């Protein structure tokens, strides 16, 4: 098992182990689906298993966890750079530069 497709309606899979760029990853013993990983990613990260259009909901556990901020191809990492919350903005240490007196916001 390389990845988990948590719900049949999900447009992402979750990596069950670390994967290198170019690796073929499969889920459901390969019977359910497989794809080629576009970039090297750690355990627990999300990968698009379908083409997702800008503004489309990202579905995990069969429910929306936010919206795509640009078009996403199958095999691509789905994270802060291409999706956003529909509730509250997500804070990362990049924003923390604001408090450190450095270069400013994203």
């Amino acid at each position, binding site marked *: *098992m390389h990845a988990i497709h948590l719900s049949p309606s999900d447009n992402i899979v979750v990596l069950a182990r670390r994967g290198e760029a170019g690796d073929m990853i499969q889920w459901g013993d390969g019977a359910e689906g497989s794809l080629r990983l576009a970039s090297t990613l750690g355990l*627990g990260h999300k990968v698009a298993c379908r083409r997702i259009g800008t503004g489309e909901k990202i579905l995990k*556990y069969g429910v*929306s*966890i*936010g919206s795509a901020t640009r078009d996403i191809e199958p095999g691509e990492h*789905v994270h802060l750079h291409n*999706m*956003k919350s529909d509730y*509250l903005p997500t804070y990362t240490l990049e924003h923390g530069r604001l408090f450190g007196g450095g270069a400013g916001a994203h």
Partner: protein
Amino acid sequence: MTPGLAGGMAAARGVPISRHGVLRMIRHDAFVRADGRKGIRNTIVVVYLVECAHHVAREIQLPFREADVHLIGFGGCFPNEYSFRMLESLCTHPNVGAALLVSLGCEGFNRGGLLRAVRASGRPADVVVIQERGGTRSTIEQGRRWVEEARRALEDTPRGPLAAHELVVGTVCGGSDGTSGITANPAIGRAFDRLVAEDAVCIFEETGELIGCEQIMADRAVTPDLGRILVESVAKAARYYTVLGHGSFAPGNADGGLTTQEEKSMGAYSKSGCAPISGLIKPGDVPRAGGLYLLDVVPDGEVRFGFPNTSDNAEIAELIACGSHVTLFSTGRGSVVGSAISPVIKVCANPETYRNLAEDMDVDAGRILEGRGSLDDVGAEIHRLVLDVARGRRTASETLGHQEFVLGYKHFEPVGPACHPTYAGAAAGG
């Protein structure tokens, strides 16, 4: 339904019978307090009532820190109803046998009220006021002598039977990552389902980490009114965090693959399992009937005093104030914390983290991702471990000496009757 009635009344006579007729005896030598509640540890708490008394309290506790004497307290000088209620609930927790209050002398905390409340529960309690006891050194000496005497007194604590339906178990997650919501959290949910079936009280919390789940959660409420209250509690959290400009989301969550608050919420929500939701409680409310409860940790009214819970340990303290004998702590990134008063069981979601921090963890839930077990296997293991820890087995964080404690300022309005519909009829026995 009259849940808890038979159980509560029978328990008061020392014969544990659950409302479902399911009886799982945990131990015959639980610590029975004068107020009838039953503990799984026999702890003495040393309690500073203002930051200015923290050092003296810590020095009193230090020689006994491996002898079940724990340090808790409140740093603020301004009085606050919530923090008073928290310390009252904690000093009279079933795992606590005696309490020594340490006061500087001029702080705003109502030390007389707290002392009366602890003594009224039948526990040995006293207060040492630094300004009246000749300063730091002599207060430390007098405090240590009091603790020595209390330890001897607690050797004679009455013992009695404890069954699963008399147990209160809380759950919290900290240092979450992309594995938390697919291994440790749903496995904790399975353990909760087993405990609720045995009529135990199970408590999940942090409404700010349920943002996005409010509708599916409301469908599990035992009444439509309670469902609306659950939705409103999450909306309150969303308003609160929006004003503060920051959700319950740390940078490590994103490093671990989580992207949004609602994604983290869905993972956190799975800790609650599948049981119906019996009620909504607030810090210090001890559920009077078995079942699954949501603890609303976000203050009521206008936003004040800053972030609701500054760290995971503030949430654990609130779960314990609601009676939790044991707390199930799910972590992906690898939190190492424990707690004063009640043991914390660490359920590690991420197999890489487990290998890295094995000594700090109690359960390897990440093995699910490596095909070394199912959610049901891990859920059953967590359930067994809860019972073992209730029997006295030490958790990883207890063994390593973790006794963290955090308490800040908050404001709450009391819950209304619609928040606990299953209490009807249970009040007499509860």
